[in-house]
């Protein structure tokens, strides 16, 4: 099941990063910068995902603390 979830993520990321990075008409190889854009897209999306989850957790922490103080 974890395996299926990873496969889903990879398929979704492929679609999203394709739309973001492959803007030219498809050629017999990737255009300049397209391949590095694809791997950067995956890396930055994972960074974003971690950053957002951290922010949410920090805010929940602050909320709990504020409740404890009152």
């Amino acid at each position: 099941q974890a395996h299926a979830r990873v496969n889903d993520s990879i398929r979704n990321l492929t679609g999203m990063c394709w739309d973001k990075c492959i803007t030219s008409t498809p050629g017999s190889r990737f255009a300049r910068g397209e391949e590095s854009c694809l791997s950067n897209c995956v890396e930055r999306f994972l960074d974003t995902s971690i950053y957002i989850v951290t922010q949410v957790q920090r805010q929940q922490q602050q909320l709990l603390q504020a409740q404890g103080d009152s």
Partner: protein
Amino acid sequence: VQELINKATEKCFAKCVPKPGTSLTSSDEACLARCLDRYMEAFTVVSRTYTARIS
């Protein structure tokens, strides 16, 4: 909640990281933090309006 965070991640990545580079810059992160706050606020506005309407 998980699904809401996933959606916020997707929308804010689209808005704040239009051209993914070799790292997330501090200005990308600042944009993401503000975007997350706005997305949650948007969710609150939508919930409030929707609930007021259907009840």
